[in-house]
């Protein structure tokens, strides 16, 4: 692409952004000549340049838009439709520009639709009664190119002439002499004072790389200065001075100022990130039929351009969110006694070393009750937990992935995508988001972000003799710990915790996580706990020593090391040493997964309930024999009450006519016989053609509750016991009863020989817990994982399995993804796979066949599962030999 075109693209892009903003302002204030003049001039410039560069599509579009705007200037009333039309013309221009940037040529196609509409509107304009005195538009810039023209380049004078000569709508009334005045310094688009517009300061374009390089050099200078100061100090204490002192002080001073100056070059007003917002809000008002005012304050607050890039999209999303969810329709607003027009207020200001951005709307506010309900439904928190939470904490659920309480999903938002991304992006740069909301009064989001990413305050700590930096923003407090003191690290089953203000704080022994030599040997309970909070989790990082805080220049991690989640970057300290910067987010993630791994290891020995998982299950509670019993409702086909007189007895077995077939009945408790008279309550389980009825004393209730099962090994009729609704309840093992009803549902005999291992993957702990005992009963060792990623992590960590049983339908990576990943790996490529799916579609069956899935088994068909496992015992032997 030649330079001229590149220059044109950059420049035009900027112009269009300004026109966008100005048009929205103009729509609200149609009598403002200055704004109109500004827009007109920019569009005219675009048109002229396009003509010169030979871009006919762009030129024609710009020309038509200019014509219509010319009519505005001549007194045509400014309507919303007209502005919308011009805005969509600008969008088309942007599309073409994007294509131009990609291919260096205008894309094929025509714009007759837009041009036609623009012309119709322009023609419909009444002729201006009095031709207004011609205002001079545009000026000539006096520009000198300080080198001879390269071949193919054109002098600016020629360019200028070209667009003066390009046909424009003002030609009919333009004065004969298009050059109004001799050249004079370029009058930049400075709106008159008091306009409140976007002030342009005199600037030059500098390549970002140049600035980055400057930054590096200054950092180096600072380091060198520090070394010099150190030498001077030593000499001084040795008695000599050497005449260094004064010039060194001067050098020190200049360096500091230089550093500050270079930092400033990276700063940009936050207004640049806001430029698109008025347009966004305007379009949304139209789409949602709401009246919304966007008020922006503090647009000139400066922050690092890197930070600016990161927050640009989150801000846009939050504004959309406020407009869609926050602001009510005019009707609702009137009913609530509020002005029809809603207001979204965007405010930015400096506060200490951070910048605060507030996004406030005066809309309906968050419905905390709905959020609590939704959080409970989605199993994000238990009932009791939710009751303990304050509104501010509850509000944070809206940042959960896929969380949306919007009743209707609109095109704008409500799909639950976005707010979690917003939060992640902001936290990525060490920022925080807070929500304050009042029902009916509105919601305010407060974002706090560091001014710059390049320099942050960091706490320097030591771990096993190595120094690390922890960003100060992440540090809530520091606690000194020593065995025997008030603050001592205690252990729960080997896991370190700290009692801090009546709460237990999980402690991460960072030396161990880092795998530093000597970490295992040292007692590790003496040192400092750096208390930090990630999301809603608060935890402490145990380090050996704490030095001081230091302003550090953050340097990115080498691409070869970026996969280590524990570090966000590195830096050079004052003494010249390279130090790694710890990332509390990464530590939380890594520790989280490690906990998961430990748990999995434990499950290998004996399947343990995943007690920290707040999953709820819908359970059917009934009475059968002594005490309450429960069975997951998902396993139950129907609940029936039958006349005991209809029960037929054959060979001591009870049968009942049910839906045209004979269904065997089995008593839930052998001690309580099936009734011979009156009504008998039965719970029907079915599997394809076969069905059985479990005769129970009484159906008690259907409840939704967390299921923490205490497993029992010595009884086959129950999986274990659990506390449901505060009462001890036995969870029934349906697999026990099925063979009692049908012989061919026979329980497979226990296999002799060495135990084989099966890897069970299901996102629901409940099914893992239910299926694992079945497989163990069939002589398998069970390794279970709650997600495809967890399973793959297990495989990667060296776990060996003779078969894989996986749910196909899991959130995140599906079972198919898992199988594909296994097939692609070296070790697990030949592991036999059984897929759990209740009703596989033909596509799924085909896909499974291609991936070499051994069998499909319905999720509740446990005998089928055991049979399928028994069948693959043969090939599993081969896999075993291969892995060994």
């Amino acid at each position, binding site marked *: 692409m030649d330079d001229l075109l590149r220059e044109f693209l950059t420049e035009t892009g900027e112009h269009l952004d300004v026109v966008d903003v100005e048009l929205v302002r103009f729509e609200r204030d149609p009598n403002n000549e200055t704004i109109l003049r500004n827009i007109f001039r920019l569009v005219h410039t675009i048109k002229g340049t396009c003509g010169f560069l030979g871009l006919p599509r762009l030129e024609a579009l710009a020309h038509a838009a200019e014509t219509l705007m010319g009519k505005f200037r001549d007194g045509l009333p400014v309507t919303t439709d007209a502005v919308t039309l011009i805005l969509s013309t600008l969008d088309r221009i942007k599309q073409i520009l994007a294509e131009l940037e990609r291919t260096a040529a205008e894309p094929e196609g025509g714009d007759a639709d837009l041009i036609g509409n623009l012309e119709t509107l322009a023609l419909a304009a009444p002729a201006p009664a009095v031709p207004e005195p011609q205002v001079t538009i545009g000026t000539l810039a006096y520009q000198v190119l300080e080198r001879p023209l390269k071949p193919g380049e054109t002098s600016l004078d020629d360019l200028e002439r070209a667009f003066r000569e390009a046909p424009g709508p003002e030609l009919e009334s333009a004065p004969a002499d298009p050059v109004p005045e001799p050249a004079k310094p370029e009058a930049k688009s400075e709106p008159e004072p008091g306009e409140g517009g976007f002030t342009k300061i005199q600037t030059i374009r500098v390549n970002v790389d140049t600035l980055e390089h400057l930054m590096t050099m200054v950092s180096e200078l600072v380091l060198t200065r520090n070394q010099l100061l150190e030498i001077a100090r030593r000499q001084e204490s040795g008695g000599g001075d050497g005449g260094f002192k004064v010039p060194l002080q001067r050098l020190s001073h200049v360096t500091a100022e230089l550093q500050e100056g270079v930092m400033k070059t990276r700063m940009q007003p936050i207004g640049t990130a806001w430029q698109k917002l008025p347009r966004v809000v305007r379009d949304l008002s139209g789409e949602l039929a709401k009246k919304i005012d966007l008020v922006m304050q503090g647009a000139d607050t400066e922050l690092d351009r890197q930070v600016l890039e990161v927050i640009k999209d989150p801000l846009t999303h939050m504004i959309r969110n406020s407009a869609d969810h926050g602001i009510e329709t005019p009707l609702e607003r009137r009913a609530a006694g509020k002005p029809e027009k809603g207001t979204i207020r965007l405010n930015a200001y400096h506060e200490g070393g951070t910048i605060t951005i507030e996004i406030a709307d005066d809309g309906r506010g968050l419905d905390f009750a709905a959020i609590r309900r939704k959080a409970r439904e989605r199993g994000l928190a238990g009932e009791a937990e939710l009751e303990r939470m304050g509104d501010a904490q509850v509000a944070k659920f809206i940042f959960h992935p896929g969380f949306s309480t919007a009743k209707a999903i609109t095109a704008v938002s409500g799909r639950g995508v976005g707010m979690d991304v917003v939060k992640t992006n902001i936290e990525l740069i060490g920022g925080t988001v807070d929500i304050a909301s009042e029902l009916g009064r509105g919601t305010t989001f407060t974002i706090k972000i560091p001014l710059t990413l390049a320099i942050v305050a960091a706490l320097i700590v030591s771990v096993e003799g190595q120094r690390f930096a922890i960003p100060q923003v992440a540090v809530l407090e520091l606690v000194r710990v020593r065995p025997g003191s008030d603050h001592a690290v205690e252990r729960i089953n080997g896991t370190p915790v700290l009692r801090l203000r009546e709460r237990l704080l999980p402690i991460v022994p960072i030396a161990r996580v880092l795998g530093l030599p000597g970490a295992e040997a040292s007692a590790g309970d003496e040192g400092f706990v750096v208390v930090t909070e990630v999301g809603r989790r608060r935890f402490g990082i145990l380090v050996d020593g704490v030095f001081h805080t230091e302003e550090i220049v953050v340097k990115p991690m080498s*691409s070869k090391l970026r996969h*280590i989640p524990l570090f966000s970057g590195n830096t050079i300290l004052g003494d010249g040493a390279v130090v790694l910067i710890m990332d509390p987010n990464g530590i939380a993630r890594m520790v989280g997964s490690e906990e998961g791994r430990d748990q999995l290891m434990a499950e290998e020995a004996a399947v343990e309930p995943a007690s920290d998982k707040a999953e709820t299950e819908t359970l059917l509670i009934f009475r059968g024999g002594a005490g309450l019993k429960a069975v997951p409702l998902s396993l139950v086909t129907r609940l029936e009450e039958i006349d005991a007189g209809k029960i037929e007895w054959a060979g001591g077995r009870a049968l009942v006519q049910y839906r045209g077939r004979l269904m065997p009945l089995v008593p839930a408790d052998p001690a309580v016989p099936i009734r011979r008279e009156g009504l008998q309550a039965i719970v029907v389980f079915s599997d394809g053609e076969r069905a059985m009825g479990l005769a129970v004393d009484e159906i008690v209730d259907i409840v939704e509750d967390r299921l923490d099962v205490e497993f029992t090994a010595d009884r086959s009729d129950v999986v274990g016991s659990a506390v449901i609704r505060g009462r001890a309840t036995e969870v029934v093992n349906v697999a026990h009863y099925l063979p009692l009803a049908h012989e061919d549902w026979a329980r497979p005999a226990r296999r002799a020989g060495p135990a084989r291992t099966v890897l069970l993957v299901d996102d629901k702990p409940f099914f893992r817990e239910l299926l694992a005992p079945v497989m163990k009963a069939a002589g398998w060792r069970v390794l279970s994982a709650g997600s495809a990623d967890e399973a793959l992590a297990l495989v990667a960590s060296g776990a060996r399995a003779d078969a894989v049983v996986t749910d196909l339908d899991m959130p995140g990576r599906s079972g198919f993804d898992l199988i594909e990943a296994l097939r692609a790996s070296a070790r697990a490529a030949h592991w036999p796979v059984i897929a759990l799916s209740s009703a596989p579609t033909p596509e799924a069956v085909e896909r499974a066949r291609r991936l070499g899935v051994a069998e499909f088994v319905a999720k509740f068909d446990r005998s089928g599962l055991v049979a399928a496992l028994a069948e693959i015992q043969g090939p599993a032997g081969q896999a075993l030999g291969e892995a060994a």
Partner: protein
Amino acid sequence: MTPANANAPEGRAHAAEPEEYVTVTVADQMFGLAIDRVHDIFIASSLTAVPLAPREIVGLLNLRGRVVTAVCLRRRLGLPDREDGAREMAVGIDHQGESYGLLVDGVGEVLKLNPDTYEPVPAHLDGRWAALAQGVHRLDGRILIVLDVDAVLAFDAEARAA
């Protein structure tokens, strides 16, 4: 990084032109690195180890204000580490906009070698070595292996797959 003047008239590697190599030794074997890829020779000191890093990366160091990732050529070639105390020399290389220091046992002179001593990599060379070599030069009494700098530094994918 791409050179600014991509349309420079003469490209590199004219078949008949002699090529210049910075020679280094690792375990008594001589290696050559194309001189235009080497921008620095320095002593690697005060290395900061990076926990959980791939084995080839021995640490980070500060080279005049730049953070340099130190890669051990011995480990890259599958050779054992040297005994402690040996002075580590490093060759500074830029690769995809990042600075690396390749740790070697020693750095020798710059050799100007004619293409007539050049041969492709012998077919039976150890796979690990062959993957990192571009070719060899037959010199008087020794063999110089021309290192493929990009291949030497392309180990992240392997490391993660393993």
